């Protein structure tokens, strides 16, 4: 479970987060939906303790990130934007390295990496260096890194960017599997179809604030619109920054 309460953060002259509060529950996929610059990435970075909030706090499974960052991060997997691959390592090395950093022994880390490589159908590229990988191969490697240590909470920052249909499907199926296994999945996106198709709960963000919370259907009902896209525009009051 991921819970943020009253988060505020100022970056330079911009109030990136403005008293932001929400909860993402276990066994659910929660979408953080907002136009570009709404503060989605800032919010996720704060959850990871990479940015310090001016006010408020973030909790992972009840552990305060600011007070006990290492313990809190052990319950988290991150699919970052951008990916941050080590281009000179192979996916197998890359994935087992991060598994070891999460406290697995070397042997367990290797086994965990092997099993996640199989799950994502990556065995053909598992021992090639990441340099020169396609966007889809990079995505899979980063995704494998996020789930290799089986954290209860998985955070994905703009996971579908630049992916073709096949890769998007792999990702979508994996997120559903994770949800069915009882994990808490939180992802940020500005792609309506993605959010509508996957999310149990949508948190609509604009200018660092939560504008609305609910399932896609609830949001449509609330605004009296038929599509999530129309509901979204109604909620944030402008059509700025929406990707098709």
């Amino acid at each position: 479970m991921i819970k943020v309460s009253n988060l505020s953060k100022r970056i330079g002259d911009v109030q990136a987060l403005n008293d932001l509060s929400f909860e993402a529950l276990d066994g659910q996929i929660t979408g953080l939906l907002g136009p570009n610059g709404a503060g989605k990435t800032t919010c996720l970075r704060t959850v990871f303790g990479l940015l310090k909030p001016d006010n408020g706090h973030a909790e992972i499974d009840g552990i305060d990130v600011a007070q006990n960052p290492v313990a809190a991060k052990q319950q988290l997997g991150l699919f970052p934007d951008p990916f941050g691959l080590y281009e000179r390592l192979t996916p197998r090395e890359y994935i087992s390295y991060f598994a070891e950093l999460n406290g697995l022994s070397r042997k367990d880390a290797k086994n965990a990496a092997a099993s996640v490589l199989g799950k994502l159908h990556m065995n053909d590229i598992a021992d090639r260096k990441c340099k020169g990988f396609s966007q889809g191969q990079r995505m899979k490697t980063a995704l494998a890194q996020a789930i290799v240590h089986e954290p209860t909470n998985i955070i994905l920052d703009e996971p579908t960017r630049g992916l073709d249909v096949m890769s998007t499907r792999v990702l979508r199926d994996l997120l559903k599997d994770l949800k069915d296994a009882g994990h808490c999945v939180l992802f940020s996106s500005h792609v309506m179809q993605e959010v509508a198709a996957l999310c149990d709960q949508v948190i609509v963000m604009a200018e660092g604030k939560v504008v609305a919370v609910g399932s896609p259907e609830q949001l449509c009902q609330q605004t009296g619109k038929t599509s999530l896209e129309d509901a979204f525009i109604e909620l944030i009051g402008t059509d700025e920054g929406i990707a098709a």
Partner: protein
Amino acid sequence: MISTIITMVRKELTDAARDKRSVMAGLYYAIGAPLMMCGMFMLLIGQITSPEALNITISHSERAPDLVKFLASNEISQGDDADRKQIELIISEDYASNMANSLPAEITLIADNSNEKLQSSIRRLEKSLQVYSAEMGSLRLIARGIDPKVVQPLKVVVEDQATSDSKGGMILGVAIFMMVYAVFISGMNLAIDTSAGERERNSLALLLSHPVSTRDIVLAKIAAVTIFAMVGLILTLVISKIAYGFVPWQELGFSVNITPDFIALMLVIGLPISLMAAALQLFVSFMAKSFKEAQSYLTIVLIVPMMLSMAASYNIAPDTLQWLPISGQMQALIAFIKGQEIPMLQLALSSTTTVAIAIVLAFGMERSLKSEKIVFGL
């Protein structure tokens, strides 16, 4: 915690070993520098042992053929017009007759004594003339049945106290400087790659979002860069040992030996320096926004240790420098080579300071990795 650090060091080294740029940077220096030093010493020895021919103008040389022959045997002659020095020797008209009559035969030496560049040449010419004069005098005394020793009341015996190793100290000072500098060069590229490069490739934020403390990250990175620096140092020592075997030291009357004892001492002294070099390079690179920016900062920062070790090998302000980091260790190494006693107190103090600087820099890095500005390059 220890196992996390080991995991990170292992990953950093695997990553670095596959980075051609990092490996080559270390290798070029470790192989190139000793060979260049070797070539330089060979040239230097060649110059010291065979004195250059001194070309001067000798007017009326036909009046004193014996003197001219004597000077020529000492490499002093008219030579080519082109490289003739501004020194003229005029032999007087009555030279031959005065010489025959045991009267002072006059020769005139014309040169600008205030010209620094001519000083040593003038002195060399004067000395040769005096030797010739003394030789002639002795011959005249012998012809008159007098032992020439009568006119030599003083016999000065010069005993050169310089042992053959201490003569080479100066040359070796330069060689040691080259070895100490290997520590700075070998790890430099890795230091930049693993800090500024890591941020440029966006993996720093990912690494920090995993459950590892910033202290472990800093320690692992310092350890990896230190290992690279030490490998570079070992390589440099091995190549130096082989290369210096080809330098014709015997022509100088002394030899420069890189003994196993020296290698061991160099490695022990080199470790704290490597630690400091690693911490310094990482610290500066983390402050830089990009790989290129870090490179340009580091070239400037590395002038400081270079100056310290240069100063030590050229004997500038030795009393102060022997207490300072890097120059203190350099002086201890030079003392060891000269066969003198190693100044233990100074060595201990300068090594401690070196390690202390490394620790302070490590703390600074730990703090900076908690700063949003550094992590995201804001």
